[in-house]
């Protein structure tokens, strides 16, 4: 009789710990997705020395660590944008579902590649397997400038139908380069 009570307590502890983890993640997601800080506010925070000498709140990194981390991440991001030619101008995401193994997020993305702008919307389903996390894109919606070109619209609808986000980006660059070249050529002849 003792053993079963013990087991019942241990089971409840495990399920409570899982629930707490999930709730904490849900809370973090909502926090992250509902607030927004402008560039000026970010700049001010970077210049601030608040908290450098005070004791840190438990579990949070020091202000200088955070500044260093942000700088390194922004350098990586700016490098990638320059290198790939894909400039993202805005990104928002919304966590639609979060369970122990699955996360579904809705993303809205806009940016441009050379002079070609695009807007994307898609749902990303991530499932935690034993060894890795698998990701699947669904409900892909693409708005591409110069979509009047019939070949482009065919490409866009076929890409949307199969959720081919990767192919879209890989083709975007070559198309944008060609488009830019054509644009410059036309300008030259005007």
């Amino acid at each position, binding site marked *: 009789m*003792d053993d079963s*009570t*013990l087991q019942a*307590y*241990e089971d*409840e*502890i495990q399920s*409570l*710990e899982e629930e*707490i983890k999930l*709730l*904490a993640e*849900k*809370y973090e997601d*909502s*926090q*992250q997705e*509902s*607030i927004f*800080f402008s560039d000026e*506010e*970010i700049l*001010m*925070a970077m210049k*601030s020395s*608040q*908290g450098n000498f005070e004791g840190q*709140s438990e579990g949070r990194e020091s*202000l200088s660590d*955070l500044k260093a*981390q*942000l700088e390194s*991440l922004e*350098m*990586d*991001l700016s*490098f*990638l944008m320059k*290198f*790939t030619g*894909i400039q*993202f101008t805005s*990104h928002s*995401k919304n966590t639609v579902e979060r369970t122990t193994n699955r996360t579904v997020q809705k*993303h809205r*993305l806009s940016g441009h590649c050379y002079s070609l702008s695009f807007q994307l919307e898609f749902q*990303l389903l991530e499932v935690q397997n034993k060894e890795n996390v*698998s*990701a*699947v*894109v*669904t409900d892909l919606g693409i708005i591409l400038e110069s979509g009047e070109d019939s070949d482009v619209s065919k490409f866009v609808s076929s890409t949307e139908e*199969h*959720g*081919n*986000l*990767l192919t879209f*980006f*890989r083709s975007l*660059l070559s198309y944008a380069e060609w488009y830019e070249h054509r644009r410059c050529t036309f300008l030259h002849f005007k």
Partner: protein
Amino acid sequence: RVVPAGMEPGQGALAPAGEQQGMMEDGKVHSASGLFAYLEMLEAQAHEAAVKQEEIEQQEEKLAMLKKKVQELRLQRDELRAKVDLQGKGQLGKEGVMSEPAQPSSQAVLEWKIKSVKAMLQIFYLTGISGKLTKRGVCFCISTAYEGTYLDSYYLDLLIKPEVQIYRHSIPVFIPLEQIAKKYLQTDIRRFLSVLSDHLNAYVGRRFQADRLQEQFPEQIEGPLQRNSLCNLLVFKYYVSSKSKTFSLTARLLYGDLCHSLPTEAIVSCTPDAPASLAETAAAHSDLFRRMALHKAFRSFSTAPES
């Protein structure tokens, strides 16, 4: 042996029934040793009882601790639930958590921005080329996908001085990395990554189709699906039914273009005793395999009405 005076066999006052049977068996009782053994037995019993008592106490202590922990966790969970509910009702404004002051701390602002930039870097993963700057160069990550499903990612750690070179990588050996590097690495890194990405995505796409075929049509495939590591040569036997008879076809798919995931050559053959109509089916299938993804081709003729 010393037998204390006055203790004659059979007269031992300390001879309780049951446990002392050993002592009485042969009719002889060496009462002193009997007494000693009895005392030993009592001691053992007392020790056992003490151990049991300790176990019970430990068990109760453990149970009490667990009960306390459950109550603490329940409280924590309820608090979080309340917080999340408030969020849902839009009680939290721009400043964030209600309990924090109206002016968010620099820490909170930076933490938010860091998460935001990390999310943006994850988006780059979805574009196919992402990476991180390293002390001596860049570590690129090439991601692959087949339609909407993201598959393996491959790493290339590049050094940029004195010239661009590959320091480490996780590209499989059957991908012609050296060939591609020789052609493009020094002159056009973007082109190099793009061509490599074409090879990797095509390989992963071919593998994906073969895997789906095995997974989705196990009863239709006869025997094992033969393929090489590059997945550009596939040979398999499969069943088709015609007029309620089952026939076996053999397919040999060759993917001549390593940057594509459709075969350049699809030979479908039947056994010599097969009817003429089957040859037509084989030709139709061969055409289908060259135009359509393998698992989708199977899906299309598995559901189509049989001729």
